[in-house]
C-alpha cells in the first residue's frame, strides 16, 4: 500500500520534466515549417509555372466533377433507399443487390467497368453520349461548348461511375435516416389524414434529413478524394491527372517530380481539410436533439 501511494505521488513529478520537451517542440516545429518554406522556395520556378493551372484547371475540375457526382449520387441513393424500403420484394431485392455488389467491389474496378467496359458495349450498340450532347447543344445553337468526344465521354462515364458507387453508400445513409424516424410519426400523420406521400415528404423526410447530413458530408469528402481515381481512366483533366501529366516530363529529375506530387497533395489537402472541419461542425451541431 505504501509503495503504490509513493508511486502515485511521484508520478506527476517523474513525468513533469517531459513538459520541457513541449518548448523544444516549438523550436522543432518552427524549424520544420522553415524547412517546408525552404523546400517550396527551392522549386519556386516549378511552383510558379504549375500552381496557377493546377488550381484553375485541376482543382476547379475536381470540385465541379465532385459536385455533379454528388448530385447524381444523391438521386441514386434516394431511389435506392426507396427501393430498400419498398413494399415489393422485387424492388427490395434489386436495391439490396445494388448496395451489396457496389459496396463489395473497389471503386477503381467500377470506374474501369464504366470507362472501358460499359462505354465500349454501349458504343457498339450505338449509344454515344457525346453525340447526344452535341446534337442537343446544336439545338441550343451553342455546340462549341461541348468538349471533344474523348474528354466528354470520359467525364460522362467517370461521373456516372462515381455517382453509381456513392449512390450505394448513400442508399444506406438515407435508409437508416428514414428508419430512424419513429414509426409513430408516420402513424400520427396518416391518422391525421395525410396520404402516404405527404407523410413521407412533410413528416418523415425533414426529420430524416437532419440525421443524414453528417454522414452525407463525410461521403462528400471521400467522393472528392476518390475523384482522383478518375485519372486512371484518362480523359478527365482533374487535379490528379494534371499533377501526373506535369510530373511525368520531369522524370529525369525524380526530386522535381516528387515536388509536383507533393504540390498536388497540398492542393487536395486545401480542398478537403476545410470540408472535414465543416463536416465535424455539422456533426456537433446535429448531435444536439431538437
Amino acid at each position, binding site marked *: *500500500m505504501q509503495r*503504490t*501511494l509513493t*508511486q*502515485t505521488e511521484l*508520478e506527476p513529478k517523474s513525468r513533469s520534466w*517531459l*513538459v520541457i*520537451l*513541449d518548448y*523544444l*517542440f516549438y523550436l*522543432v*516545429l518552427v524549424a520544420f515549417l522553415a524547412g517546408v518554406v525552404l523546400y517550396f522556395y527551392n522549386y519556386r520556378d516549378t511552383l510558379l509555372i504549375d500552381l496557377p493551372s493546377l488550381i484553375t484547371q485541376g482543382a476547379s475540375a475536381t470540385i465541379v466533377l465532385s459536385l455533379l457526382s454528388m448530385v447524381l449520387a444523391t438521386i441514386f441513393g434516394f431511389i435506392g433507399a426507396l427501393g430498400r424500403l419498398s413494399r415489393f420484394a422485387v424492388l427490395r431485392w434489386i436495391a439490396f443487390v445494388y448496395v*451489396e*455488389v457496389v*459496396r*463489395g*467491389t*473497389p*471503386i*477503381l*474496378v467500377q470506374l*474501369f*467497368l464504366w470507362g*472501358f*467496359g460499359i462505354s*465500349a*458495349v454501349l458504343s457498339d450498340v450505338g449509344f454515344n453520349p457525346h453525340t447526344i450532347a452535341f446534337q442537343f447543344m446544336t439545338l441550343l445553337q451553342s455546340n462549341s461548348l461541348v468538349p471533344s468526344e474523348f474528354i466528354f465521354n470520359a467525364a460522362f462515364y467517370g461521373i456516372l461511375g462515381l455517382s453509381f458507387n456513392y449512390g450505394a453508400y448513400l442508399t444506406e445513409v438515407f435508409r437508416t435516416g428514414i428508419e430512424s424516424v419513429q414509426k409513430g410519426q408516420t402513424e400520427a400523420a396518416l391518422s391525421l389524414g395525410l396520404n402516404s406521400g405527404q407523410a413521407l415528404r412533410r413528416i418523415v423526410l425533414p426529420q430524416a434529413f437532419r440525421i443524414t447530413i453528417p454522414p452525407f458530408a463525410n461521403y462528400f*469528402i471521400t467522393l472528392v*478524394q*476518390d*475523384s*482522383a*481515381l478518375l*485519372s*486512371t481512366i484518362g480523359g478527365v483533366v482533374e487535379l*490528379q491527372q494534371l*499533377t*501526373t501529366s506535369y510530373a511525368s516530363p520531369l522524370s529525369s529529375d*525524380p*526530386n522535381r*517530380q*516528387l515536388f509536383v*506530387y*507533393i504540390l*498536388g*497533395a497540398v492542393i*487536395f*489537402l486545401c480542398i*478537403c*481539410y476545410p470540408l*472535414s472541419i465543416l463536416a465535424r461542425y455539422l456533426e456537433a451541431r446535429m448531435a444536439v436533439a431538437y
Partner: protein
Amino acid sequence: MDLILQALPDFLDGAKNTIIYCITSFPLALLLGLVLALMSSSRFLWLRTPARIFIEVIRSTPFIVQIFLIYYGLSAVLYYISLSIPSLSLAQYDNAWVAGIASLAINYAAYEAEVFRAGFLSVERGQTEAALSLGLTSDQNFFRIVLPQAVPLMIPPFVNDFIYMLKDSAVVSVIAGTELTSKLDFWRVHHGSNPIPLFVLAIVLYLAMSLPTSWVARWYERRLRAAL
C-alpha cells in the same frame, strides 16, 4: 466463357496477392494506429501535435496521391541512402510491394487511430477513476481495465476497415502492383474487344473476398449488441 477460364488462374493469383497486401499491411496499420492514438491523446504537446497533423493530413488527401508520393518518395530516399551506404543495398526494396504495403499501412493507420481513440473514449471515465483509486498504476489501468473493455467495441470498425482495405488495395495497381485489379487491367488491355467477362470475373472475386468478411462482421456486431 473461354476467356474466363483462360484468365481464371491469373486472376486467382491476383486475388491471392490482394489478400497478401491486406494481411501484411493491416497489422502494421493497427500497430501504427495504436501508437498514433496514444500519441494524440497524450498530455504532451510534442506528442499530440505531430500525431494530429499526421492523422489530418492523411485523412484529407486521396489514397492515390499518397501512393504516388510514397512510391516516388521511397525511391528517392532509398536512392540517397544507398548512395551513402552502398553495403545495405536498399535499392532492391524500391518496388511496388514495399511502396504498396507501406502506403496502405500509413493510410489506414490514420483511420485506425481514430477508431482506437473512439474506443478508449467509449470506456467510461468512472472506470479509470475507480481503477486509480483502487491503487492501480495508470499503465495497469490502461492494460487491465480500459483496453479489455474497449477492444470488443473496436472490432466491428476494424473489420469494416479491413474490407475497405481489400477494396482500396486495388489502387496499388497504379504503381504496377500485382494484385487483382492489375491483372484485370492487363487482361483488359490485351482483350480489348470483349472486356465484360473479365470485369465480371474480377467483381465476383472481390465479392467473394469482401462479402463473407462483412457477414462475419455483421454477425459479430449483432452478438455484441445483444451482449451489451
